[in-house]
Every structure is written in structure tokens, then in C-alpha cells.
């Protein structure tokens, strides 16, 4: 993925580009109106074209433009920048509503960067979590009949015809089983899973121009890992299996609830789960919770993450707001689409990382970085090693330094992104195939705890979870 960065940087919009300035209110309204009219393409080539055009040109390029702009002097460019933010966000939203699926993940990651990114940018992108274009009830009815063998009226005691949430590949409806249980039913848009899988297979050939570079095999391995991860997200049967596995890891005393799956009403394209009450982070924060309540929410999220990792050997990658519900000191974990399942070798590697974090010793961290980033003794790799160690020492600060960490420190989060941007710009991205997944998690978890303004000590949580499970 990093190989396209240079091209992207070249293609960045400039603040003095007349096309990127002065988005009028009328143009904004017109763009929003178009959102409701665009159907989702399921043709692979059509989607591929859109992925290349919008995902790369607007999404990634904009991210780097935005990061790069931090290094410039401020003041004079402020107004142009805000307008460029809005314009890019709207373009992205338009196309994401159109494509949903894999591309939506990009917006979800960006939207977590509340307050770090300009408000106009994140406010618009945040709508992606819950306001993706809807399937009407006639289409939902057909999809359910096709998958479950009956109309909603026959299958369920009650079925809400309006969706109550958008999912990245479809939408979620509330219902009640004939046996009385309240459920949430996630329904995929017809054909979207196959289309995404086809698109992802088409991505690798796009990288072929990079095949002569020395890191080609590594880039390909990383892309393949991302591809497998996204493909898994299109299969609700796989998600049902992971939900069941995760649910078994928690007891009532943990105050962490993973919903039960109703297998008889679930397929690869329809997932029926126990309905979990609660509010998402935006509504949780709008209630102006106390610092204690914020910390408690963050601690539950960290405990869930550690439990899944150590006891379940699953790294919970997908920390976007739609996946977490908060209610009365409890946490609901309602989506298991974005999970990296660790084999023995991967788990051993995670233990090595944990050891380095535990000692905080630079030699241990360097040893781990050499292992993770495949750095040998070549002198030309020295800067790569130093920069990678600097990045690890920063993102592992909550573990390396004793006591409470203030995750609400904007400068600290900004430095995380700066370091990541620097590594990416210098193409220091060689690493284990799961590197993009782990990086996605590092960024997502830090931004989520940043939004919560959490001040917590992760050491006791880690120690308890490791003690119980290792």
C-alpha cells in the first residue's frame, strides 16, 4: 500500500488550486441531494474504477494532504483548508454512500480523529457510521426470504421495517423472535460480498508496477493479509462463529456483553443477534459523563481487548464507534467483523511485543522491532530501525511508563500520527504481513480513547488478563 504514497503526495490538492476552493452552500446541498439517488454498483469493474478514483485520490490523498499541512505555517491557509476539508469529506461521503462496503472503513477510521482533524471534516464523516443509504423494505423482504426461506412477517413476531443502524455492508433491523427474544438482524446488500471479494482480488494486479522493488514480496504479503481480513468481513457465518467464541470469554461479572447469535436465523448474508441496549460513543459523550464514567468505559474496552487477545487469541482490530455500546457501566461489543485471528506463531510474536513493553528496555524493543520489521544488520537499515523503535516507544507509552496515561492529550495523539506518517513517507513499512491490521488498530484504539478523554492505568488490566489466561 505504501508504494502509492509518493504518487499520492504528488497528486495532492493544493490550497491555491481554484478547484479546491470556495465550496458554495448550493454546491454542498446539491452534493447531499445526490447521495440519496445513487444506487450501489455491484459490477466489479465499476466498483474497481470507483475504488481507485475515490478511495485513493480523495480518501488517502486527502489524509496525507491533511497530515502534511501540519508541517506548514498556519494562519493564512486556514480558511482554504477548512473549505478543502469539507469538500473532500463530502466527496468521500458521496462515494462511500454509493459504494459502502470496504471503502466505508476508511471514513470510519478518519471520523474517529475528532478534534484532531478539522471539525467540518469529521462531522460529515461521522455520519457514515449510522447514515449509509438504506435498502427499502421490499428489498429487505426479498433478501430475508431468499436467505431464511420466509417473509419477515412469517419468521418473526415483530419486525421493524425501518433500519435502526447502517452496517458497512448493509443495515440492521430490530425484531422480536416468536419465542419472545429481542434481536438485531444485520442484512447484507445483495451481491455486495461477492463484489468486494472480486474487487480485492483485482487490487493485487494494480500493484504490479511495484514488483521490481526490493520490498515487493513484503508489500504483497501485507496486501494479501488486508485482503483476507476484509474478505472475512463479508462472511456473516464467520462473524457468527467469532461472536460465539468471544461471547464465551466473558461472564456477567465482567460487565462486557457480546450478543448471542441465533443460528437458525443466520446465514452468510444475514446475521441475527441478541439485541444489546445502550448508546454509541457520540451519545454517551453528549450526556457529559464524569471522568470516572469515561475512565470506566475505557477500562472496559481495554479489558475486552486484552481478554480477546490472550484468552481468545483474537486481536480486535475494528475499533470504530458503531461497534461499541455503553449503558449503566456496561460495555456491549456488537461486531466481530474486524478481528485478526492469531495462529501460534502470531501469538508468540504478540508475546514478544508484550515482553518488550513490560521491560520497556530499548534493547528488548529493538529486538522486537528487528523481528517485526524484518530488519537485519544492513547499515542502510539503521535509520529504519531507529525510527521504528521511536514509533513503538511512543505508541506503547501507556505500557512502558508506569501509572495513569492521559489518552485525552491531543499532542500525544498528534505525535502518533506524525510518526506514522513519517514512517510511511520514508517507506519504512516492511514488516509482518499483519502490520497494516495492527497499525489500523493502534490508530483506532488511541483515537477512541482520545475521544473518551480517558485517564487510565492499563497495567493492572493487562496483568489480570495475562495472569488468568497465560
Amino acid at each position, binding site marked *: 500500500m505504501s508504494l502509492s504514497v509518493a504518487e499520492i503526495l504528488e497528486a495532492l490538492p493544493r490550497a491555491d488550486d481554484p478547484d479546491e476552493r470556495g465550496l458554495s452552500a448550493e454546491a454542498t446541498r446539491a452534493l447531499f441531494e445526490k447521495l440519496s*439517488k445513487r*444506487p*450501489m*454498483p*455491484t459490477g466489479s469493474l465499476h466498483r474497481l474504477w470507483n475504488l481507485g478514483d475515490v478511495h485513493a485520490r480523495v480518501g488517502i490523498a486527502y489524509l496525507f494532504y491533511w497530515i502534511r499541512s501540519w508541517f506548514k505555517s498556519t494562519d493564512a491557509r486556514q480558511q482554504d483548508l477548512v473549505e478543502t476539508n469539507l469538500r473532500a469529506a463530502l466527496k468521500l461521503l458521496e462515494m462511500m454512500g454509493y459504494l459502502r462496503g470496504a471503502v466505508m472503513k476508511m471514513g470510519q477510521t478518519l471520523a474517529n480523529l475528532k478534534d484532531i482533524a478539522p471539525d467540518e471534516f469529521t462531522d460529515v464523516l461521522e455520519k457514515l457510521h449510522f447514515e449509509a443509504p438504506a*435498502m*427499502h*423494505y*421490499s*428489498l429487505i*423482504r*426479498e*433478501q430475508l*426470504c*431468499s*436467505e431464511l426461506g420466509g417473509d419477515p412477517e412469517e419468521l418473526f413476531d415483530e419486525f421493524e*421495517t425501518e433500519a435502526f443502524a447502517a452496517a458497512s455492508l448493509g443495515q440492521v433491523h430490530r425484531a422480536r423472535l416468536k419465542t419472545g427474544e429481542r434481536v438485531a438482524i444485520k442484512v447484507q*446488500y*445483495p*451481491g*455486495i460480498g*461477492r463484489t468486494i471479494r472480486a474487487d480485492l482480488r483485482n487490487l493485487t494486479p494494480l500493484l504490479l508496477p511495484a514488483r521490481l522493488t526490493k520490498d515487493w514480496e513484503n508489500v504483497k504479503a501485507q496486501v494479501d493479509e488486508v485482503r483476507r481480513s476484509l474478505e472475512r468481513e463479508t462472511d456473516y457465518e464467520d462473524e457468527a462463529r467469532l461472536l460465539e467464541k468471544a461471547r464465551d470469554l466473558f461472564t456477567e461479572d465482567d460487565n462486557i456483553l457480546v450478543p448471542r447469535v441465533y443460528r437458525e436465523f443466520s446465514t452468510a*448474508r444475514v446475521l441475527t443477534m441478541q439485541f444489546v441496549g445502550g448508546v454509541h460513543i457520540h451519545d454517551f459523550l453528549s450526556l457529559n459523563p464524569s471522568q470516572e464514567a469515561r475512565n470506566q468505559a475505557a477500562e472496559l474496552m481495554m479489558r475486552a481487548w486484552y481478554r480477546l487477545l490472550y484468552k481468545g487469541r483474537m486481536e480486535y482490530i475494528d475499533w470504530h464507534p458503531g461497534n461499541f455500546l455503553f449503558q449503566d457501566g456496561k460495555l456491549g461489543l456488537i461486531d466481530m467483523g474486524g478481528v485478526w485471528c492469531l495462529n501460534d506463531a502470531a501469538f508468540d510474536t504478540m508475546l514478544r511485543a508484550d515482553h518488550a513493553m513490560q521491560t520497556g528496555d530499548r534493547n528488548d524493543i529493538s529486538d522486537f522491532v528487528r523481528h517485526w520489521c524484518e530488519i537485519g544488520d544492513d547499515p542502510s537499515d539503521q535509520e529504519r530501525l531507529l525510527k521504528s523503535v521511536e514509533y513503538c516507544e511512543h505508541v506503547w507509552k501507556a505500557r512502558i511508563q508506569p501509572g495513569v496515561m492521559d489518552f485525552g492529550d491531543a499532542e500525544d495523539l498528534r505525535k502518533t500520527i506524525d510518526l506514522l506518517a513519517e514512517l510511511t513517507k520514508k517507506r519504512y513499512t516492511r514488516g509482518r504481513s499483519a502490520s497494516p491490521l495492527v497499525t489500523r488498530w493502534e490508530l483506532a484504539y488511541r483515537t477512541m480513547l482520545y475521544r473518551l478523554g480517558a485517564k487510565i492505568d492499563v497495567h493492572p488490566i493487562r496483568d489480570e488478563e495475562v495472569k488468568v489466561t497465560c
Partner: protein
Amino acid sequence: MPRITEEAKQATRKRILDTALSLFKSKGFEQATTRDIANEAGIAAGTLFNYFPAKEDIVMALVTVALARAAEEFAKQKREGASLEEDLFLNVSTGLRRLKPYRRYVGPVLETTLSPMVASASNEQAQAIRVAHLERVQEAISSHGQSLATWTIAMQLYWTLYTGVLAFWVNDSSPKQEDTLAMLDQSISMFVSWLKERGNG
């Protein structure tokens, strides 16, 4: 010679259709001959031709019955407050559900009777299907406050999309024909967008 009552005629007609459907399923449309159908139904071949001059007419009759039931289901399932897209989608999807048992062999018949290329008066049953379907479409459009000066163009455009979806569905090899649902959703959405632009213009 005793006259055959209308009731007896309808019973025979129904027996022929049931038998044909059963044979199409077991032997396949191509392999099942009109003679087989007549034998299985316990009537003379000549009698069968009095009811249905060709095997394709039997299929057309099956389609007519299926779509009549679909129209009843459409009326029953139509929701208060639904969007125009939802109503138009339902009008087609109820039909596809009822036609599903005939999907493997209905293609050539639909091609020669319902295609926009076919003169509208060439087949009485096909013409009746077309009229009934388009009446429901017009009613749905009108009930959503859309008025058009040029219904002819709108209906021709709609019919072209509709028969295009039918042709796609007949050959759809995707799991559970899920691509047809996406195709229908997008076709309807495209048509309604066009309609609204025309209406606003």
C-alpha cells in the same frame, strides 16, 4: 352429444397446466412433448391442442396464472407510506417469486411475447400481462404525486428496464439470484431518478 360445461373445461385446462408443470420439472421443458402432456393428463392430443395450440402457450398460461397471483400479493403487501422505489420494486419482486418455478424454461417464451421488440397485439395473454403490470406502475407513480405529460415514453422506458431485468434473471447464475435483486434495485432507482427529473423539468 352432451355439451361440455364451462366448469369441466376449466378443470381440464387446470389439469393440463398442472401436468405440464410437473413434466417440465421432471423431464425438462425441451424433453417434455405435448403428446407426453396429453397422455399424462389422460386426454387426446387433439383435445390438448383445442386448449393450447403450442407448448409455449402452456407456458404463457402458467405465467399468466403466476402473475395474477403476484398482483394479488402486491396489493396485499403494499405498505402505507412506502417510497415509489419500494412500490415499484415490490411490483416486480412479487412477480419474480411466482415465476421462480418456471425460471429455467420461461426465458424463450418471455422473449417472444413480452419483449419490447414484439408488437403489442401479437399475443393476447402477453398483452393482458403488459397492460395489467403497467397499470399498477402508473397507479404507483400517480399515487406518489408524480405526473407526466408523456406516459408513452415513460412506460416504454420502464418496460425496457423491466424486461431487461427478466432477461437477466432468467440467466442469473449468482447464488440465489442475488444479482437480480441488486439489478432490479438499481434499475428502479435509475427509472425513478429519471422520472423525478422529468417531473421537475
